């Protein structure tokens, strides 16, 4: 399972990546290049919270592409799990997409992985709780719900 994700980190321009199950378990993360590990984890959780909101608008798999001045955040949110990748602006999105598609397909075909995700009942919405966000954001969550 791990080596499939290692490939993603091998792509030029990828700083770090995280894989979360919807029940909150962090399955995998790589050591970030030039960023604090806890900070990255918090960022990844924020991205999954965005997924919780996106799910409420249209329940499906999601792909996020967020371009900042000096970096990129990409995310692939599937039924039971979430992959968040932090990159330099120079990363090749095509290469990343290709690698991620193949890695996630391999992962979903993996027996052990299937067994683990079959036990997940929680949805991404479980990341959206009053206690882990500011009051303004929470009131927005309540409107969307």
């Amino acid at each position, binding site marked *: 399972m791990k080596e499939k994700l290692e490939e993603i980190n091998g792509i030029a321009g990828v700083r770090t990546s995280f894989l979360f199950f919807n029940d909150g378990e962090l399955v995998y993360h790589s050591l970030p290049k*030039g960023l*604090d590990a*806890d*900070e990255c984890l*918090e960022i990844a959780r924020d991205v999954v919270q965005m997924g919780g909101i996106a799910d409420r608008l249209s329940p499906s798999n999601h792909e996020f592409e967020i371009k900042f*001045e*000096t*970096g990129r955040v990409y995310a692939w949110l599937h039924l039971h799990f979430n992959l968040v990748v932090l990159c*330099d*602006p*120079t990363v*090749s999105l*095509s*290469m990343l*997409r*290709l*690698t991620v*598609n*193949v890695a996630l*397909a391999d992962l979903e075909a993996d027996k052990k992985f299937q067994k683990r995700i079959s036990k997940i009942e929680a949805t991404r919405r479980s990341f959206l709780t009053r206690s882990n966000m500011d009051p303004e954001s929470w009131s927005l969550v309540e409107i969307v719900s």
Partner: protein
Amino acid sequence: MSSVLSGNLAFLEVTSVVKLLLSDGQDGRLILQQENENGEIYIEGGQVVHAVCHAYIGEPAFRELVLWTSGKFAFDPDGRASQKSIEKDVNQLISEGAQQLEVWKRVRSLIPSYKVPFRKTNREPEGGVKLKARDWEVLAALDDGESSVSDLAGKLNMRDMDVAVVVHTLIEAGVVEAGTAARPVHKEVVDEKFFKTVENELIQLIGPVASIIIDDVIESMGEARSTFPREKVPSLVEAIAGEIYDPAKQLAFQQFMLRQIKSL
């Protein structure tokens, strides 16, 4: 009188909060939080007496905290300093802090990230600019070529923030400029045999229409088989995969191509 004051640093700068508390004659502990970082400033008898931030204590901690422009603050009127780490007069401390924040804002406008590379311009410092020893030290570290702020900080064993201030000075003096983020690379072209392999695989998946699709995609990318750049292969694969409607075949093609790209 309200017992607890709290708020957002995006609206109220740290120096403003401290001034507000001082003007209100409050004693206590100002707790600051920015993402995962925490800091504390202690006020007693109209003076700032103690500050803590990361490993810093006293004035260095205060200097760091005044630069925080996001995060939260909360005031705890019962907090008392465990020690006195700041002797400087509070007005001087605050005015220095405010000046520093101004400098810092200017620095951030030229250096948006510690990862952006800089290089020497090999020009003389612009009229009247006197470089200090530390400025020369950073400039000398750029002799090896392009470096980012965090590279330089690592080399010189300085803090990122301090290096950023120096680099800012050097940019303003005209002796340093932004480097080429993308270094000039020799454009590598893929072997024509590569397209044969791709074509064979694609024919197996979707039939004889494969070669037409490949040519269409190459053309739409403004390229030709004989001079196709290696760096564009992932985009090519993505575009071709988009033409395969059966998801299983699409994945099979992507898996195959990923192996091919790795062996290029």
